[in-house]
C-alpha cells in the first residue's frame, strides 16, 4: 500500500492466520468483500475479542469496545477501513 507507513492489509491478514488458525493461502485469497463475522465459522464471539486485542498490539492502536459492531466485522474490507481510520488517528 503506497503512502501507508504501516501495512494494515498485511497485518490483518497475518492476524487472521495467527488467531483463527486458517491457512496463509486462504487469508491471501480474501478480498474486500470476503465475509468475516457470521461467514467465517472460526470467527466466533470469543475469537473476536482475541482478534481485536491482537490487532491493537500489532498496529499500536486502541479499539473502543463501543466502536465494535457487526458492521465493522462484516467483511475484510470493512475491518481494514476501521483499522486504517484508527491508525490515522
Amino acid at each position, binding site marked *: 500500500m503506497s503512502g501507508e507507513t504501516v501495512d494494515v492489509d498485511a497485518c490483518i491478514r*497475518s492476524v487472521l*492466520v*495467527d*488467531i*483463527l*488458525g486458517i491457512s496463509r493461502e486462504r487469508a491471501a485469497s480474501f478480498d474486500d468483500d470476503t465475509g468475516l463475522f457470521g461467514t467465517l465459522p*472460526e470467527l*466466533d*464471539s*470469543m*475469537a*473476536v*475479542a*482475541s482478534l*481485536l*486485542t*491482537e490487532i491493537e*498490539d*500489532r498496529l*499500536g492502536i486502541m479499539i473502543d*469496545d463501543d466502536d465494535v459492531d457487526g458492521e465493522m466485522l462484516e467483511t475484510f474490507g470493512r475491518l481494514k477501513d476501521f483499522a486504517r481510520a484508527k491508525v490515522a488517528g
Partner: protein
Amino acid sequence: MSDPACWFRTGTGCARQILIIEPLFEEANRTRRMIAQMMRMLEAQGIGATIVDLPGTGESLTGVADVRLTDWAVAVGSAIAATGASRIAAFRGGSLLGGGDVPTWRFAPETGGRIVRDLRRVRASGRSETYAGHVLTDAFLADLEAAPIPVPAKVRTVRLSADAAPADAKVDGAPLWRRAEPGEDAALSKALAADLAQWIDRCAAL
C-alpha cells in the same frame, strides 16, 4: 500452598531447577502444551522445571473468588523454596509475579492493565457474568490492573517477531494464547526452550 505431589514437574533429579509461572487464566490452558514441550526439552538438557500452582487455578483447591494477587506472590515464593529453583521462567501475565532477587526469563510479558482489559472484553463478548468461566472479584481485578511488571535484578525478555514492544530477542511464531484451538507449534517451543537453556547457562557462568 497446594499439595506439591500434584505439581507438574519434569527433571526432578536435575541439579539445576527452574520455576515456571504460566500465563493467567484461559491463556494458561492455551499454552499448556507449548510449556510442557519446553519442559521436556529442558529436561533433556539437564534442567528440571516445576509449574507453580497459583491458588484458585490448576490443581489448587482454593476458590479463585477468595484469592488476592498477594496470595499468588506468596505461592511463587513458597514454590521457589520448596523446589530449590534458582531461576524463574514467566509467561505473559505470569511475569507480574516473582521478580526480586531471582533471575527471570520471560516470554511476551503483559501488563496487568491489558490483561484486565482483555478479560473484560472476553466477558462482554460471551455475554456472561464470569470471565471465560473464571469467577473473579472486583478486588482481584483491581489488584491485577494496578500491578506493575516487576524488574528483577537479572532479566531477559523474549517476544514474538510480530510484537512491536522491545525485547532482548524475538522468535517467529503465532500467539497461541489467543487461539481457541492452539494446537502446537513445535518450532516455537524449540526456539523458546533453546533461548531459555542458553540464558540459564550464561547466568550460571556469571
